[in-house]
């Protein structure tokens, strides 16, 4: 697939996920939306700052009691074609150089869409806190 079609594919998948999440949490659970949205805003910068493995391990170990954050990570794994977030993490950690670089770039492309839809669909701004 060309870069553009991968990115279009991501856009479509992510949009559907976020829309569904929005529907499931419409109106009532503000906390859930914020959790999901703040992860969408925070993770891409964390990936840039710490590298993909550190960033994914970080969000995996901080998710205690945060179901929506967990849901976000499972969504991301699904978009990246992994069976679960745990699988994605394993894959990224053990990937040789070329695969690791590709996974990083693809994750960043996907995250770009989460960030956009968190803002436009869920209405969560970058400065809003999920905690």
């Amino acid at each position, binding site marked *: 697939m060309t870069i553009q079609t991968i990115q279009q594919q991501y856009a479509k998948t992510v949009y559907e996920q976020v829309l569904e999440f929005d529907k499931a949490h419409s109106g009532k659970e503000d906390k859930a939306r914020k959790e999901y949205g703040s992860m969408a805003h*925070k993770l891409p*910068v964390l990936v840039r*700052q*710490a*590298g993909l493995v*550190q960033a994914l391990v970080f969000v995996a*170990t*901080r998710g205690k009691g945060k179901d929506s954050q967990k849901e976000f990570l499972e969504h991301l794994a699904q978009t990246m074609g992994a069976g679960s977030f745990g699988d994605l993490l394993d894959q990224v950690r053990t990937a040789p*150089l070329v695969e690791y670089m590709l996974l990083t770039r693809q994750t960043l492309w996907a995250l770009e869409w989460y960030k956009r839809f968190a803002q436009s669909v869920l209405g969560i701004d970058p400065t809003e806190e999920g905690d």
Partner: protein
Amino acid sequence: MTTKSRRRALDNISLDVRVAPHPGLWLDKFLKEQQEQGGEGTKAPHFQEAASTQVSPVYRDFFNAWKQTLQGVGAVTKEAKTTGRLAIGLGGESVLETSITLHRTYGVPYIPGSALKGLAARYARTRLEDSEWREGKAYKILFGDTDEAGYVTFFDALYILGSAANDHPLMMDVMTVHHPEYYQGKSKPPADWDSPTPIPFLSATGSYLIALYGDDKWVEAALQILDRALREEGIGAKTSSGYGRMDLDLDLHATADGPEGSTEVNRFRTRLESMAVKDVAGQIHSVYQDWKVLEVDLETKLQIAQIILDKLELSGRAKKLKRKKKPWFSELLAFVDTYSRE
């Protein structure tokens, strides 16, 4: 439970301080494992490792070139000495949950120009008496607004070579945060700071090279503001716990000898700084009279005369007085001219 958090290919790499590693890279990407919330076990040694690195030898060449460059553009430079410790960029996005701003290429701590500018602007707005400074023209000239950039450039203040003990500017530090609301209102208070465990972080010491560029009188004004803001409010995070205080080595302070002399200087300075530009014409003469009868040492008297002249210059009043050849104004000029040469 711990999870390995490096790429497997990097699992066995250990830090070798002899080969000049980039401490920022080590901090960001080489934490061995991460723990569930509340487990801080692996972080402290990781910070300790980064703090054990010395300033990179390549930074030596860069810092010297940097000083020359600043001279080349005509920037005014002053040393700011940390009186305690600095916590710059503490709330930055990081898997360590606390962060510190390090130079991207050289790995040394520094104070971003944007942070200095922000501090000075906020200080001017909230702490200076004069409405010119709070929201008026002077404020706009110095700091700009959304339509127009300011007239003074605040460069990043880089770590001054050799200024920290053994040239190790990074220090291991620990905070115990009982009240998470401490950080409320900041952009991203980490989620689990309400845990009672001590939280490790890195702070910085040493001196930093403040560099401003612009019209002389505006640079001077910005330095005066920065001087007060760095001493009174401090820069970076944890300022309410005493972090971030710095002494700015302005020549005025350096030469003021004895507490009595500097008190007088400060009294005049405060008085003039809080004087609105529109009030200068009406009030400056009484300042001059007070100066005239002041019985202090020559050095102090000279400094105050200079401060008065600076205010006249800054307010645009000096030109007019010069043209009119006002005797008291000429006296001030002559005084400074005569004694500052000695």
